[in-house]
């Protein structure tokens, strides 16, 4: 029985009204067909391509274009974007508020990226803060946090969190093994700060729907940092203990809040960490393979139990 047949039945039994039936049957047939998602992706891709091209053009032709022209152009774009956002933004509310229009979020995002570009140019050309790059990142993070909360924008919140990560010295994409110890300390501090800030703001009911963004980012950074400690050849015991505690917390949070990404984090990061320690102590191919076979089966059994008890539906 197709969904259209079911809708007919529900209409006849009085479960839904004829108006609902007509509307839902139309939706099932793609009438109307929403291109909301496609337009959003197009806008996002367009902005990224534009900013990439702008950055490439400026860096390549800065001598020919001149500082004044570049700074005026970037400042104008930046000012227009923020004028647009501030002039059209609805009254601020601590709860989730819908975007006033499809392009609103992307204008703000574009403005933020332009700000980053201009800041980079200013520092590299004029060394205004004499190489105190951390201050730029911190100022950028503060600005982006303000804008994210003012305009209820997750894109900008992610930018803010990544800028803050930059300030903490964390660059996830350029993780270098010889700097693990330094990165690890900053990464743990960053994840605890971001996670705590997210929880505090959630408890104060300030844009509580942002909590997931904070926690997902904080959890991943924390797990990577702890894993890098577990992979050390010496003194890894404390990191393993910390990893197990983090896994337990992530598992408990994921199950209690039905957020199964945290269950997945606990399972994968925990398994990799524990296995990396145990495999060092196991000798012989058969024993190592046997370890993976037995623990793999155990993990599947545990996950199936969790899935059946807590996560039957997507």
């Amino acid at each position, binding site marked *: 029985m197709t*969904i259209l047949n079911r809708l007919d039945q529900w209409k006849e039994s009085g479960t*839904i009204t004829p108006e609902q039936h007509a509307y*839902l049957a139309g939706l099932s047939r*793609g009438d109307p067909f929403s291109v909301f998602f496609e337009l959003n992706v197009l806008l996002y891709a367009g902005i990224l391509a*534009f900013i990439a091209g702008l950055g490439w053009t400026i860096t390549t032709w800065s001598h020919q274009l001149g500082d004044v022209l570049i700074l005026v152009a970037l400042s104008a774009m930046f000012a227009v974007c923020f004028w647009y956002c501030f002039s059209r933004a609805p009254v601020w509310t601590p709860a989730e508020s819908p975007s006033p229009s499809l392009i609103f979020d992307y204008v703000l995002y574009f403005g933020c990226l332009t700000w980053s570009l201009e800041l980079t140019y200013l520092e590299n050309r004029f060394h205004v803060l004499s190489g105190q790059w951390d201050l730029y990142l911190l100022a950028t993070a503060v600005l982006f946090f303000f804008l994210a909360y003012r305009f209820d924008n997750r894109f900008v919140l992610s930018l803010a969190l990544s800028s803050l990560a930059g300030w903490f010295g964390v660059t996830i994409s350029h993780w270098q093994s010889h700097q693990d110890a330094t990165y690890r300390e900053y990464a743990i501090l960053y994840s605890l700060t971001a996670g705590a800030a997210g929880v505090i703001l959630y408890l104060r009911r300030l844009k509580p729907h942002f909590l997931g*963004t904070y926690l997902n980012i904080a959890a991943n950074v924390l797990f990577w940092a702890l894993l890098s400690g577990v992979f050390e050849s010496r003194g890894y015991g404390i990191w393993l203990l910390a990893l197990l505690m983090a896994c337990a917390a992530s598992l408990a949070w994921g199950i209690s809040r039905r957020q199964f990404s945290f269950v997945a984090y606990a399972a994968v990061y925990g398994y990799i960490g524990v296995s990396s320690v145990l495999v060092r102590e196991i000798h012989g191919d058969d024993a190592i*393979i046997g370890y993976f076979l037995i623990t793999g089966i155990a993990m599947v059994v545990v*996950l*199936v139990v969790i899935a*059946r008890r807590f996560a039957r539906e997507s």
Partner: protein
Amino acid sequence: MRAYSASSEEALRARNLLKDWAGEGFLTEAQYQRMEQETVCDLRRTNIFLRIVLFFFTVLIVTAAIALFFTTFLRRPSEQITGIFLLIFAPIAYAAAEFAVTQARLYRYGIEEALAVSSVAFLCIGMVFVLLESHYPRPAGMEALILAAGAIASLWIWYRFGLPYAFLAAMLFTVWLPSHWTSSHSAQHLAVAAIYGAGLIAIVAVRARYRFTYLDQTYSIAEALLWLGIYAAINLQLSSLELLPRLWNGIERPTDFSNPFYWTTWALTWCLPPAVLARGLRTKDRFVLAAGAIAAVLTLVTNKPYLGWPRHTWDAMFLGAFLIAVALFSRRWLAAGPSGIRHGFTAQRLSAKDKAWLSTGATAIGFVAPQAVTPPQPSPEFQFGGGDSGGGGASSDF
């Protein structure tokens, strides 16, 4: 022939739609509860995160089990023996997948998917050991046989279990087949396009019967993949192994194609995207529409290399401005229609899934590439400038 009954899959589709409609407020909570009770089905599902993790651990178990078998019973086996045992394990893994579906009623659970995928992998690797590695010189035609077997097995997995990535795997196996039939690169491109074209005709013919049913999405994804495959086969810039340097420099062109063939494919790269977009719009098919859009963007990106023109730093800006303009114009045009609807299309959000995907994407993309969106810390030798006219920025420090 499908592993799941039509009634079960229709019930699952109905449940998904009801959840979506309730989330958007098209149904009251009481209506949703009542309607949901009438769409109960016996299939066991889980969420995407646990599905991925279960897939990972099942692959680990299967791999470890086979490795343990070899280390315990077959110390240093010959390549032929290894291949034979892998060929024995392939149907065992497949049988386990069938068992997980028919007895445990698993549906997109990760476990049965990993077993099915493992069966194809064992089949292909086993054939490689038996037919290729244990013979010297390698017998002619055997590689094509292995690829064909992989493609057929993947197609079966797609058809039986409805896994879209199995269809993609079948397409990837097919890509390498023509290289064993002919040494002509032009003929290879034509053969791949012809195979995908034949598949497309078959899919289009079959899916018309399943419009508005649970199978529509399965065929929709397959059709979109085939359109993209045909496009990739005819776009000589894309399918070249030297893709990246060529796209970057934009001044070279492949030399192993005749001029008529080369310029015909260039014309086709401009003809195909509008045709795919038109079909996607006519059938209101989200995946085909996406395939058309991706093909259109790729045509714009590869056009200069195709023509042998130099790439400019501002090309990306123009592309971005074009994409933004298309999005804004489409939105305005649709919004100007009665109730924001024109020709059955609207720019309004009608599904809670759209919002969820955008939220997830915003979190992931914003943090995965922080260096792209935040001011990067400069190296001591970093400097703006350079890239004088004619150098295309190649000498720039950035």
